[in-house]
């Protein structure tokens, strides 16, 4: 050990060693601090909502219809509406989005046309959602005569999430190692056999993660659905894709904007229901992803 200081003194990098060690620790501290700020604001938000809404949250609240009396009002139509809307959105957006991504990534090549489409999709992902609401109103509600229905609302949301679905699916497909494709082609597999049997199974966990992010965005959307015709005071739960509907964020918005303080408690409880719905969606996604990852390794 006695030779160590000598060796250090001879090391040409030792001059900045103290500074490098300090920077190493300093960055760690800063990163931790930033993380804590983010977590603290999230915790404050949730605490605030729980404090306001926890007492209102009950089975009755979940299964009741809206009412003029805050203590009797419930969230049932909005909850069913949200679940219904998100299911139909998924049915519409997932096959189209995944298929579009497969085409762009696997067949589209690098032509000018393909790059233009890619640029457009990236831009569409950043378009304000209210624009999609206007499009939905014009296209689905009026032109295609769907009226103010679940189908029109879900179609609008499907358009809204489509760019996100396409982009995340492309990322997942791109992450599949090229050696896997080559191995399949080398055995005499066609392009589609390679995509179906090798690429898609490996990409599935990534695709699912993207889908759930996209659908999580859709379930929180308010603006496009207000424009595309969601009702704000629903006394019925939708029972077909042609039914009028409302969704949780709209119901929450409706309650928050009322002057009576009691309704604000309802809004907080509604937010809790929405958060729980989101959490369970993400839970299902993580479960599915793990299942597919294990299946791939087995």
């Amino acid at each position, binding site marked *: 050990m006695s030779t160590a200081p000598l060796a250090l003194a001879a090391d040409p990098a030792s001059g900045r060693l103290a500074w490098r060690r300090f920077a190493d620790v300093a960055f760690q501290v800063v990163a931790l601090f930033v993380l804590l700020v983010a977590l603290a604001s999230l915790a404050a938000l949730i605490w605030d909502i729980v404090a306001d809404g926890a007492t209102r949250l009950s089975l009755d609240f979940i299964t009741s219809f809206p009412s003029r009396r805050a203590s009797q009002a419930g969230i049932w139509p909005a909850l069913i509406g949200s679940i219904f809307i998100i299911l139909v959105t998924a049915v519409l957006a997932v096959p189209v989005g995944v298929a579009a991504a497969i085409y762009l990534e696997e067949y589209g*090549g*690098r032509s000018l046309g393909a790059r233009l489409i890619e640029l457009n999709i990236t831009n569409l992902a950043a378009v304000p959602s209210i624009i999609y609401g206007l499009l939905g109103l014009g296209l689905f509600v009026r032109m295609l005569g769907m009226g103010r229905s679940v189908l029109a609302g879900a179609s609008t949301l499907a358009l809204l999430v489509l760019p996100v679905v396409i982009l995340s699916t492309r990322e997942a497909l791109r992450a599949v*190692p090229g*050696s*896997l*494709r*080559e*191995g*399949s*082609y*080398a*055995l*005499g*597999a*066609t392009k589609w*056999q390679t995509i179906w*049997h*090798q690429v898609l*199974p*490996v990409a599935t966990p990534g695709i699912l993660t993207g889908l759930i992010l996209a659908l999580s965005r859709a379930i929180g959307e308010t603006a496009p659905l207000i424009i595309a015709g969601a009702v704000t005071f629903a006394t019925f739960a939708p029972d077909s894709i042609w039914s009028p509907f409302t969704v949780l964020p709209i119901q929450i918005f409706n309650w928050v904007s009322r002057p009576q303080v009691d309704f604000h408690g309802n809004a907080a409880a509604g937010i809790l229901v929405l958060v729980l719905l989101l959490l369970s969606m993400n839970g299902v996604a993580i479960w599915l992803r793990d299942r597919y990852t294990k299946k*791939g*390794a*087995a």
Partner: protein
Amino acid sequence: MSTATPRQMTSLGELASKRQDSTDANTPAKIDVEKLNFYYGDKRALQDISIRIKPNLVTAFIGPSGCGKSTFLRTLNRMNDIIPGTHADGRILIDNVDIYKSGMDVVQLRRRVGMVFQKSNPFPKSIFENIAYGLRINGMAGSKSELAGRVEESLKQAALWDEVKDRLHESALALSGGQQQRLCIARALAVRPEILLMDEPASALDPIATQRIEELVYDLKKTYTIVIVTHNMQQAARVSDHTAFFWLGRLVEYDRTEKIFTAPAEKLTEDYVTGRFG
């Protein structure tokens, strides 16, 4: 293993007497390449390659990195087609059919010309499914017992059966590197190719695993025409009957392996095989 394993054949002088000379013109070529040029975009990677590769022999491609030997290997099953912006001119005849002619069924070609890659690339599926995949996609699976029989046969051909027969339904990714590479060979053999292309199949393996691959190559040439790319000149000397030396996208010299290593015609070849550059 067979009576003369490649490992025992390190003495090149001994070899010369054992090997039949089949560069002679009356053996028909399995692969006949005429004036092949290959381009990555504008860059010409292969220049006027002409070579006749004989059936049921092992032909080794040697040369320094970037000399085009892998690129050339990948033209033989048109694997380069999947790289955008590449094209080839010239002719490659396999059994007298030009594989670059328009209307050529690339899918069928690749079934007949199998390939093993430098880095083993088993599918993230079970050992059984890795082999069965090629049979299924080519409509060769037949009944369940036929499929199982074919899987067993392929694994035996690749000298892997005894090591994996009790865990066919476990993940292929749990195998060791050498086992994974033999699985990839078994996978390629399962679809009954006529030609087996091997792109540095042992470069990532330890000496023991390398020896097993080399022994396998030696056995397989009875049934298949084998083309092997290698960085390792001892390996080329051990396993191959013919050797082709590539340099800067050109085929410099092609002859019987012992000739290439003991009395090459070109100065460049001599410098390379004696380790003066490369």
